């Protein structure tokens, strides 16, 4: 089991997700300064000084053969072999990372070994980059900042009042953000549950909001989901900033999809999204132009449901719910 120097059991999941989601290739330095076998230790010393680096990989046609570290250079100066070829004195026992590994691996490697940098190889075992702790901390800071921005934005729009009436929640959805996909629908579901809506209504609203949310993630340039909790109904509006649906009628047909292979491999793009939304909505509308698409789905609360929502302690609610379902 790898070790990461933070508690992985109850740390904020956003941080854990980050270090699992980010790959080594996302943080590594790609501009490599390397030498080949014929170089001398002296040449490496000059390279280090002029580029302010502390380790230089030795390669032959992208194959990593060794690394000359600052320590190797100091030894060479001390013992008078600084003019020798690197081949004789480079460190050959190397620990490497693969570019597809999660950053959590890199972090645990730095924790476990004394090295200051790790060479990164791709699947073909070619040297494609180097990772230092500095690379990781810089990128993590950037990502954490980005996540906090998202959280702050969501907090602003989900600040709660008592009861459901006339409350509006707005969620920003980013293009291709599969990681956070489902957040808006989960929040809407939670809200309806708190408001004592019936399971059937919650399920319908969850389906509509999830499909609309996924549509923004998969197909649009980004947009938002707006949930309006009225006394009579819940209305879920999805609006995005383009590129629009060329043929709305076709998009409403079951099985029609423009999703690519990658998106299909994630289980989306079955061509059922919009038909699903329509089938759970009491009212449904869609308008689309290259400037953006707006879908509005409204689901009415049943009469018994409304009284249940205002007075959740009424008896026999379970049976009513069953009858409705």
């Amino acid at each position, binding site marked *: 089991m790898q070790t990461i120097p933070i508690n992985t059991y109850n740390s904020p999941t956003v941080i854990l997700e980050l270090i699992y989601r980010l790959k080594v290739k996302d943080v590594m330095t790609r501009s490599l300064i390397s030498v080949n076998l014929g170089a001398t230790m002296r040449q490496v010393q000059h390279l280090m000084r002029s580029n302010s680096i502390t380790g230089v990989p030795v390669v032959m046609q992208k194959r990593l053969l060794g690394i000359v570290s600052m320590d190797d250079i100091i030894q060479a100066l001390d013992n008078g072999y600084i003019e020798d070829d690197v081949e004789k004195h480079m460190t050959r026992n190397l620990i490497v990372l693969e570019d597809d590994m999660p950053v959590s691996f890199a972090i645990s490697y730095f924790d476990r070994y004394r090295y200051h940098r790790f060479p990164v190889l791709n699947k073909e075992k070619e040297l494609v980059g180097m990772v230092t702790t500095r690379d990781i901390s810089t990128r993590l800071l950037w990502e954490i900042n980005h996540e906090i921005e998202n959280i702050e934005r969501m907090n602003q729009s989900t600040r709660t009042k008592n009861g459901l009436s006339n409350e509006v929640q707005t969620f920003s959805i980013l293009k291709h953000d599969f990681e956070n996909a489902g957040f808006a629908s989960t929040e809407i579901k939670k809200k309806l549950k708190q408001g004592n809506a019936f399971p059937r209504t919650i399920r319908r609203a969850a389906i509509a909001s999830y499909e609309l949310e996924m549509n923004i993630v998969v197909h649009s340039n980004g947009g938002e989901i707006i949930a309006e909790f009225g006394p009579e109904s819940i209305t879920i509006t999805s609006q995005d900033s383009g590129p629009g649906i060329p043929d709305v009628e076709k998009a409403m047909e079951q099985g029609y999809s423009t999703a690519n292979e990658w998106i299909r491999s994630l289980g989306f793009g079955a061509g*059922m999204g919009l038909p699903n939304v329509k089938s759970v909505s009491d009212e449904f509308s869609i308008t689309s132009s290259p400037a953006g698409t707006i879908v509005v789905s409204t689901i009415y609360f049943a009469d018994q449901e409304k009284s249940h929502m205002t007075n959740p302690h009424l008896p026999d609610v379970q049976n009513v719910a069953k009858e409705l379902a």
Partner: protein
Amino acid sequence: MTVQNLGKALEYKTLVMPNPDADIINGYTSDLLSDVMGNAPEGSVLITIQGHKNSIAVASLLGMPAIILCNNRSAPDDMQLAAQKEGIAILSTGDTQFTASYRVAHLLGRV
């Protein structure tokens, strides 16, 4: 049937089981999450090869207490974390979706 008993009876590998007493009353087999979203009954176990986090989101929204990953598909760490958080079990098997489906149907008395 509880998730725990289902896992035991099938002898599938348990990857995550935060809520062993959750009740399974039905099953749904699909790899298309939109199809699952539109059609899966509540209280179902989801039988699929979609080993990623979005499957957990769908299961959670629909009130599905467990996912069976077929064909030895692996569950990435972020998926397991999400499952733990949402209280959804993940079982893993080398069985195909077809085999897993009829075995589950048999155990639930739906054949």
